[in-house]
């Protein structure tokens, strides 16, 4: 773990509130990019990610006990997600969903799920893994996913592939399930994530 982050963590778990408050600045500087990127996976909206993260840091300041004895960044991210982020993520759309049909439990599974197979894999590892998996797909499947990841709409992808929007959605669905199987295989080979 980065020395700066280790020092910030030590100060953060001090007993008095003022010391913890002073420790927040180096802690935020050392973790902001990692945490906001992780939150973005679940919300996909920068403004909401920042609002949630603001509350997460204040919660950490208030009760940093879960962060004692953490020795690496992966463990830190896991602990912060399980003890601080999830609680806040669950609240994001709770009010909105009172007027929607998805049950609260399903909404929670969608916005604050259990940690998945690769949720704690670093961004770089994840990029390499996805690149490897895309290489195993058929050309048309790979193209559909690549275009999606470039930010194209399903209609634009359909135009590119010379097919209908419905066919693109089906193609994406089947391809994503294929990728999911590859992820499971990867997880088995690497001995599972935590």
């Amino acid at each position: 773990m980065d020395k700066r982050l280790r020092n910030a963590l030590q100060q953060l778990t001090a007993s008095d509130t003022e010391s913890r408050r002073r420790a927040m600045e180096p802690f935020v500087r050392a973790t902001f990019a990692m945490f906001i990127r992780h939150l973005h996976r679940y919300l996909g909206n920068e403004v909401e990610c920042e609002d949630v993260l603001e509350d997460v840091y204040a919660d950490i300041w208030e009760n940093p006990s879960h962060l004692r004895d953490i020795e690496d960044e992966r463990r830190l991210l896991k602990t912060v997600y399980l003890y601080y982020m999830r609680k806040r993520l669950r609240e994001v759309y709770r009010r909105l969903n009172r007027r929607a049909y998805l049950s609260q439990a399903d909404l929670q599974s969608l916005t604050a799920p259990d940690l998945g197979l690769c949720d704690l894999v670093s961004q770089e590892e994840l990029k390499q893994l996805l690149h490897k998996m895309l290489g195993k797909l058929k050309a048309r499947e790979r193209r559909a996913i690549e275009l999606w990841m470039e930010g194209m709409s399903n209609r634009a992808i359909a135009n590119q592939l010379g097919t209908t929007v419905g066919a693109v959605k089906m193609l994406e669905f089947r391809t994503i399930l294929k990728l999911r199987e590859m992820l499971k295989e990867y997880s088995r080979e690497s001995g599972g994530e935590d």
Partner: protein
Amino acid sequence: MPSTHREIQELLADYASALRDGSLPTFLKSLTREEALRIHESQDFWEATEVVRLMNSVGFGDKLVTPDVGLFISRVDAGIASRMKKAHASTRDPSRSHVNLHREFEPQ
């Protein structure tokens, strides 16, 4: 006008686009009762959402505009200050504050 009888593959594609475009509330509000039930019952949907999140992270995680972290730290600090104030207010002796209030409004 979006379809109100979307099959599970359409629902997943719409969820994926909503997550990518930062418009999950629109997707949630668009769901009909039947579609919500279809999602609830589909193991494939739930398994696929994990891959969608990873694709979203790889494709767009690095494109996040890094805001002014200093400004963000000020927001966090203001939040902490507010919580400290609330905690301080709630631990104050209520009888004392009552006395103070009473004195303050005593007629001269």
